[in-house]
């Protein structure tokens, strides 16, 4: 555990961040009745799950996973998700956007993106299963509204976030008290950056969905991003499919998650690439955050994670 440093008691920054995340998981397990961990198969939720497993080892994870499936997820990611669940003997709940569309409770948006539609099935699952704490992999470095987020974030009975009424969060004394119907979103990786996540993945030797590493695939250009063609709605007229060597920096709905051109095929090469990058991961690959200046804040107010 000892890092390079002046003191034999120094912790490396990764050990410090890991220790903090584990502390958060254990606080929630100690204080809440029905926590659940949001798991998308993306790198942040992979790191979150890994630290959670460490926090309670050698006992099994004392909570289940919840995946909000947009219906437009990358097949490689769904396969990865199911492998992980089987390997660790986890319990997985799935909230399906497609089912909500099929039975008329949600309507497809004209632009085809399903990312904002995840909020309704998510809140439905929270209410139906009476989850009182929901772990999310959100990091404060991702986005300016997330930079304002608490580690323990109280949500009202509609799942809404009110940034002006957040509880002050002092020391590591997290206050998870809430009224019936309310729940708390918990972000154990709040203080991690994209680079921290990748360095931790390298250190711990974690497997990720293959689309995080450079590979050749069919893509087409839209709004300055390389998108994957599919039944979700692309390419349209005038959009040309071509084969390029790309990788993904984030994993989300296919309709709004863009690939970046990259030849980084290993974790070490990805770390080099991110360290030199001049774009944030969301700036590079997320269309939904570009909808307006406060797009993330507005979605979070509605109950988005």
């Amino acid at each position, binding site marked *: *555990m000892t*890092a*390079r*440093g002046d*003191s034999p*008691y*120094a*912790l*490396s*920054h990764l050990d*410090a961040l*890991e*220790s*903090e995340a*584990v*502390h958060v998981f*254990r606080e929630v397990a*100690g204080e809440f009745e029905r926590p659940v961990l949001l798991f998308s198969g993306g790198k942040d939720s992979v790191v979150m799950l890994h630290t959670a497993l*460490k*926090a*309670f*080892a*050698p*006992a099994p994870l004392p909570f289940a996973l919840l995946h909000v499936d947009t219906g437009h997820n990358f097949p490689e990611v769904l396969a990865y998700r199911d492998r992980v669940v089987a390997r660790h003997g986890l319990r997985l709940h799935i909230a399906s956007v497609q089912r909500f569309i099929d039975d008329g409770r949600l309507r497809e948006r004209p632009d085809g993106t399903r990312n904002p539609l995840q909020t309704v099935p998510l809140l439905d699952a929270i209410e139906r299963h009476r989850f009182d704490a929901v772990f999310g992999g959100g990091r404060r470095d991702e986005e*300016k*509204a997330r*930079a*304002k987020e608490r580690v323990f974030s109280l949500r009202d009975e509609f799942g809404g976030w009110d*940034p*002006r009424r*957040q509880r*002050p969060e*002092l*020391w*590591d*004394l997290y*206050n998870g*008290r*809430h009224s019936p119907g309310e729940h708390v979103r918990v972000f154990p990786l709040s*203080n991690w*950056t994209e*680079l*921290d996540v990748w360095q931790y993945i390298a250190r711990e030797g974690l497997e990720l969905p293959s689309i995080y590493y450079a590979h050749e695939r069919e893509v087409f*250009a839209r709004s*300055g*991003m*390389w998108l994957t063609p599919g039944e979700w709605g692309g390419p349209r007229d005038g959009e040309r499919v071509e084969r390029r060597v790309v990788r993904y*920096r984030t994993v989300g709905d296919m309709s709004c998650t863009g690939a970046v*051109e*990259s030849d980084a095929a290993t974790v070490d090469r990805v770390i*080099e*690439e991110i360290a*030199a*990058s*001049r*774009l*944030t991961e969301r700036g590079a690959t997320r269309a939904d955050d570009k909808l307006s*200046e*406060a797009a993330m*804040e507005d979605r979070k107010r509605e109950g988005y994670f």
Partner: protein
Amino acid sequence: MSISSTTGITGIATEPAAATSLLRFATAGSVDDGKSTLVGRLLHDSKSVLADQLEAVEHASRDRGHDAPDLALLTDGLRAEREQGITIDVAYRYFATARRRFVLADTPGHVQYTRNMVTGASTAELALVLVDARHGVVEQTRRHAAVAALLRVPHLVLAVNKMDLVDWSEAVFARIAEEFTAYAGSLGVPDVTAIPVSALAGDNVVTPSAHLDWYGGPTVLEHLETVPVVADPTGDPARFPVQYVIRPRTTGHPDYRGYAGRIASGVLRVGERVTVLPSGRTSTITAIDALGTPVDVAWAPQSVTIRLADDLDVARGDLIAPAADAPEPVRDVEATVCHVADRPLREGDRVLLKHTTRTVKAVVKALPSRLDPSDLALRPSPGALSANDIGRVVLRTAEPLALDDYAASRSTGAFLLIDPADGTTLTAGMAGPAFAAASERPGPAAALPATDDGWDF
């Protein structure tokens, strides 16, 4: 669409992948003393403002009719903040250099946001206080220092900004540094570093200034990179609040019983004799598991799981400490507090007290005094504490607490008061005697010149 472009990098060359240690720090400064500029320059020159963020800020600034990019838009992330041009809440920023990674708590600028200042300072290992070289140490500077002292932030940096406007005068800097260091010393602040800078031009923020050739010390960033943040934990008594009891009851681990927690202070060793509080039973540590690796020794702030030789009744909320150096559990608590809720705190209020992993019922027996922020004197019998007030409280708890003085431990000396009705966080508490400034200045002091009406941290 490519992310490997390397154009546009200015300032120092960075290799964040090599950074190993982590420094948490908070900034303090009033609206016009250049805090945003300094933060913006630290972020920009350490390559932490990326092209798309800068582009978004430039775009938003143009929409608002500004000539130049308004770097405050980098940290003012909320719709209301951008609309009103003010900072409402703490923003956490992250940046890295080759030597260290940083978590910066950037907090808002007015007396009504003291709670946010306290929030930012509670986890900070260093506070960066800005003053305007033309004005020197003002009332607000004293408040910043006082709150850093109250929260026991170990390192204080005074950045004397706008040196370009005082002709880079060594005498001006020396006078301000001396006055501030003496004042901080009277508050019990152990370590003060004063640095002359011009944030606007970037002098001495990241790169040394040619204008300040009389100054032989570090730039702000050099100091942030090199300040020692790892104290030797062997000098502190070990404190291990039990968070969670791990009992797998699986075929592989039928008899495993581990106590999971984060070491709050000090060092724990296998073979050590320990006491479990509040029961007072003793046992011996037989194993320490540091997240997958069995170790013989572990220290704060590691999250570990420990096992004991005896099958004691140990639960969440208990505290494990060396048998030879365990705190005496108490039910009467005296503390300095910062009230953070909108509803006031009154004598007789029934509250919940959260201390480490233990939450107990408590009653507010007395409110002996309130700190007057204008002269830092304690005024007796305030009757109630309102939002952002700092004062003294006397509490009686329903169950004993293994509480240390906050002066001895920022972790096991801190607590929250919580409204039992709706869970609102009411008050941030620091157990023990009043802090140096207030105890030494009990009466009404001579009025200080009121050069500003706000403070931030």
